[in-house]
């Protein structure tokens, strides 16, 4: 074997799988513009249908999974995917919390289908949209709607080097303060999910004069009760507060519980 082929054989194999999603998180890989070709030299992108016709069979060293499970077929497919991947990483709010399509979980899905499709009998779907970890063991969940591409590179780098990834689980208030943005909730009375939302986006929304809408999901141990109370003081109705929690991470249990408490009161 030539040395070039030996090097190619040693490159870790990466696969990218898609379930119910918008494609935005896997697109983050292609958004690596400056680093994409370097990444492609460091790893063997063995299965990535959005980017390539060539599909190398597993097993793979790392599987990146985007999207949530919403059909019987996908519930079976994720089992096969898990068997083919040494490390399985769920990427994005759909894969880690069920995504915006998890809003169906509070409704009768058949009514939903009838609302969109003229011939509902042709549509096969599950009653709920659920994250990957509800179906198979997952090695890491990378949050975000969409994921942060630099966090994705950090994660891949960490796995390739065999170290722990550095992905903070504290609230987005910390990077927001660091960025020097004046608190929109304190200064402008704008409801903001920042205090209960995990960092990772770079605290974008408050810097655009708007409240965080929670696209990175719940932080580690969020105090949703205190935030709900603060929203009420700002004059938000329980329906409005419930809707705030029911965004792209609606089915993450902490946000789910907080919204259901608002619906009950």
């Amino acid at each position, binding site marked *: 074997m030539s040395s070039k082929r030996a090097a190619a054989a040693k490159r870790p194999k990466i696969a990218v799988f898609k379930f119910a999603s918008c494609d935005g998180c896997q697109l983050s890989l292609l958004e690596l513009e400056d680093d994409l070709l370097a990444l492609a030299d460091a790893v063997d*992108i063995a299965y990535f249908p959005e980017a390539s016709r060539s599909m190398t069979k597993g097993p793979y060293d790392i599987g990146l999974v985007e999207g949530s499970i919403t059909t019987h077929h996908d519930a079976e497919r994720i089992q096969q995917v898990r068997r083919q991947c040494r490390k399985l990483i769920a990427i994005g709010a759909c894969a880690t919390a069920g995504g915006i399509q998890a809003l169906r979980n509070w409704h009768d899905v058949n009514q939903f289908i009838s609302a969109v499709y003229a011939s509902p009998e042709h549509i096969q779907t599950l009653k709920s949209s659920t994250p990957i970890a509800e179906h198979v063991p997952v090695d890491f969940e990378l949050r975000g709607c*969409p994921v942060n591409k630099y966090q994705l590179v950090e994660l891949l780098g960490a796995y390739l080097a065999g170290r722990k990834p550095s992905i903070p689980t504290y609230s987005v208030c910390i990077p927001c303060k660091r960025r020097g943005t004046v608190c929109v909730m304190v200064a402008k009375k704008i409801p903001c999910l920042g205090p209960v939302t995990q960092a990772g986006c770079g605290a974008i929304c408050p810097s655009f004069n708007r409240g965080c809408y929670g696209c990175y999901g719940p932080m580690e141990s969020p105090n949703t009760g205190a935030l709900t109370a603060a929203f009420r003081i700002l004059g938000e109705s329980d329906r409005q507060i419930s809707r705030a929690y029911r965004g792209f991470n609606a089915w993450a249990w902490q946000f789910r519980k907080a919204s259901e408490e608002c619906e009950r009161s």
Partner: protein
Amino acid sequence: MSEASKHRTIKVNTLTRVEGEGALFIQFKGDRVSDVKLNIFEPPRMFEAFLHGRHLTETPDIVARICGICPIAYQMSAVHAFERALNIKIDPMVRMLRRLFYCGEWIESHALHVFMLHAPDFLGYPDAIQMARDHRAVVEQGLRLKKIGNRIVSLMGGREIHPVCAAVGGFYKVPSESDLRTLSEDLKWALDASLATVKLVAGFEFPDFERDYEFVALSHPGEYPFNEGRIVSSKGLNIFVPEYEEHFVERHVKHSNALQSVLNGRGPYFVGPMARFNLNYPQLPEVARQAAKDCGLRLPVSNPFRSIVVRAVELVFACWEALQIIGDYQVPEAPRVDFEVRAGVGCAATEAPRGLLYHRYKIDEQGLIQFAKIVPPTSQNQKQIEDDLWHFVPQVAKLPADEATWKCEQAVRNYDPCISCATHALRVNIQRS
């Protein structure tokens, strides 16, 4: 001989280098096609249903999640629909900024399709990464173009995918003049690179395949269309956007989780860059028209394989337009106008990178959505893609199976289909009989 008389199929279980999950199934005997199905198995996500009860101000961020490649298109169709429902007049500078925002998305999306998804078909590579081994400069140029489109989007909206600035009435925040000027040098390079791209892709080999299409696009007398205009077609349709649903109907077919849209009484139609180009050529700036002329692109372009050249011409346009806007821009008095919420109905159509995107919403007196209808470009092109394959397959029927399959995939990719959009629902299987 007996081979040719048998039923054969071309099956592509997973269509690659498209956005979302689809398959292709084609069955033929000799060179006669007996069935073509573009199967969209991307799971349905049912946005129209769960938008019910959501507030209009939440909607631009929610509908952005229909598509990670063209979130701005969804945000723009939504904000304009609500602005019509509430009769909101936006600031002229905000209108210009929305065109710039769209330029960013067109540059990012077209560069992705031209270089990463479509060019490998013409040069014979499975993907852009392998193409880069022999054509590194080309791929690097494509990635840099894409990055510049994304720079516009992230400067205006905080991030490339699902930007956070779009609001009913305007923007949450607008950039300063000097912020925008930081884009100028990159955009000048991008304009030159786009001109070089037109030359490069015009030199590819194109199958001899022309059809008599009905092209549909927005058309505006003074400008190449983004957010405004009448809906016109190459066969005489000329309507106001609110008349859309009287002329276009969506059908639900068994093999697809996407609804297929047809023009009432006429059948399939064609949206996207080729439609825009054919219907709005005079509104293109001189630099884009000259680039088209120099590479021999004649009106009407009716070979869908040449869509890659048209996309490159639109890259030229978008870079040029962005530079004009940056030169003329002055910060508006307010980033957005205040408005009073009341019950109403509003619709809007804008030009997503892949074509016409129609939204209609009905809201109650609190601003909560009572009804939503979203018709993405790929639903509208889906029937046309199947029709193209019916006519294209005989040309490739004698090729070895893997080559024929690849050619059929390429015919699908001509449309830059976005399956995630269409299912808010695509699969290629070719069966020979």
